[in-house]
């Protein structure tokens, strides 16, 4: 299998006044097409920094980053913007969808910055993306009329709408309860089955069990890269959770 993402000796140093903070101290990793990777680690271990660099939101201090055959380090700001637009779908912990803007307009947003798509196609693609996350009935809802899980699903639809080569999720379940988290994981597993590559940061071990493999960060370095032995199926887990809840309620 060919590597979709290849990073080598990635270093990131933040300067807080006079103090240098070494967020990443030489990270190397290959991610294949069709992979479903969960990045774990305590806070401050560098996993979010790594994610931002993978998502082309930030640039590394040194090291190499090849994404889908292009050398990201040589790109300027505008080229990086185009890269984010076409190749990456980014999902945030705090959803980051525009307030006072309907679900479908939020999903259409990345397509607005893609000149080759006209208004009709844009609406169609956005609707299909919302349908794939099960929100086809709420397309004109505003973010404040949606629950946290629904808002995150709008964000996922937005990440999907441009057919990215990789979906990156930075703690996508961090602000959600376990039931909603499982629903989001169900969507991720479904997307992965259809061939999407997913990179996800999480600090919840049970969420990481839904991925194919786990990478563990500590102090800016990868300390473990292992396959998940007993991969959980989100649909089944969700069913179990609902049954448990009903039992508790009936007792």
């Amino acid at each position, binding site marked *: 299998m060919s590597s979709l993402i290849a990073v080598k000796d990635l270093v990131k140093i933040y300067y807080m006044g006079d103090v240098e903070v070494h967020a990443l101290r030489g990270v190397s990793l290959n991610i294949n097409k069709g992979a479903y990777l969960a990045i774990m680690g305590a806070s401050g271990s560098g996993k979010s920094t790594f994610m931002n660099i993978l998502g082309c939101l930030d640039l590394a201090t040194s090291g190499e980053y090849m994404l889908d055959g292009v050398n990201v380090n040589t790109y300027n700001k505008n080229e990086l*913007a*185009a890269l*984010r637009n*076409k190749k990456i779908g980014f999902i945030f912990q705090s959803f*980051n969808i525009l307030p006072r803007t309907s679900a479908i307009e939020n999903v259409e947003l990345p397509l607005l*910055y893609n000149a080759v798509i006209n208004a009709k196609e844009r609406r169609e693609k956005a609707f299909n993306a919302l349908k794939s996350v099960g929100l086809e009935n709420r397309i004109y809802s505003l973010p404040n009329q949606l629950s946290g899980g629904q808002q995150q699903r709008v964000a996922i639809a*937005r990440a999907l709408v441009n057919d990215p080569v990789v979906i990156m999720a930075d703690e996508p379940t961090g602000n959600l309860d376990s039931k909603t988290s499982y629903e989001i994981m169900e969507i991720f597993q479904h997307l992965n089955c259809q061939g999407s590559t997913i990179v996800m940061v999480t600090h919840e071990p049970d969420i990481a069990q839904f991925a194919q493999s786990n990478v563990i960060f500590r102090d800016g370095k990868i300390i473990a890269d292992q396959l998940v032995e007993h991969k959980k199926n989100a649909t089944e887990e969700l069913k179990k959770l609902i049954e448990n809840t009903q039992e508790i309620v009936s007792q």
Partner: protein
Amino acid sequence: MLGIIIGVASVIAMLAIGQGSKENIKQSISSLGTNTIMIFPGAFNQAGVRMGAGSVSTLKEEDASIILKRCDLVNHVVPVVQRMSQIIYGAQNWRTSVVGSYADYFIIRDLKISAGNIYTDADERSAAKVCVVGQTVVTNLMGDGADPIGKTIRINSIPFRIIGLLEKKGQNSFGQDQDDIIIAPFATVQKRMLQTLNLNSIYASAISEEDISAATKLIKPIMRESHKLPPTDEDDFTIRTQEDIANIFGSISQVMTILLASIASISLLVGGIGIMNIMLVSVTERTREIGIRLAIGAKGSDVMLQFMIESIFISVIGGIIGITLGILISNLVARFGGWPISITISSILLSFLFSAAVGIFFGWYPAKKASSLNPIDALRYE
């Protein structure tokens, strides 16, 4: 948007009120007759002894019409004949100054009628025996509060019908009673009373105060040519203007101009700061939105374009509402405050362009700053 509306409206209202006051003051000063130009006959000169202004009779009625025709900085020119005469009404008599001039004399001297009418051009052509009298004349001949209209008085034994009463003016700055006067058509006084071709003076009014000195310079050669004076001869006439009053007028108008300019710049400054704050705050609080747009693939230029269009839109709409509101406020002040206003195109343009420029700049600047951030920094902005 509110900042722009209030900024534009306040500038327009302040300028309208200021400009109105300036024009009001200008008008009151003009009514003193500051734009009057007086031409008197020259000095009698025999063997080097000169007899003082008015000692020769050189002015003719034609001079007035030539000046009116050839000098376009004056709008009214009248010939004046004047003589102290004995007036008889019933058993009373009184000596006063009788002035003969065209009806335009009332306009030049800013004389108003409190009862009756002034004489017409037809009266002038037929040398009608009609006259307009001052209040002092009426009081002395007929008693206080009498109605003189329609009564007949005798001036040098010639009967004149009174057709108008002058509005009371009181004394002038030299203690002369301005109401002690009788004014009659030029032809009547000249032909019927005095049988003379010589004028006592010619009165002209310049179009505006600023034109007085230019008009004076124009009149001089016209008069010389009309009198066929060789270049070596002295002028056989003197031109006088009310220079001291004109000077006061000039300095008051200068003070008003400075006052207006400072009002305008202060209100522009205050309005500008209001607009600046609102635009700065509203764009800065959208830094997160800019971060989101950058994160999903917007280029810096895309974000800039969006915010430029938004601030232009807000500035233009706010400016238009502000102009409307400013005109409305000015008119309210005019109606309920009884204050004169004058809304000028330049004040509208000035306030609108300034506000739009401030609004667009302070919409553009924070957007520029935010869109040049790393997307991740813009997203973290609180």
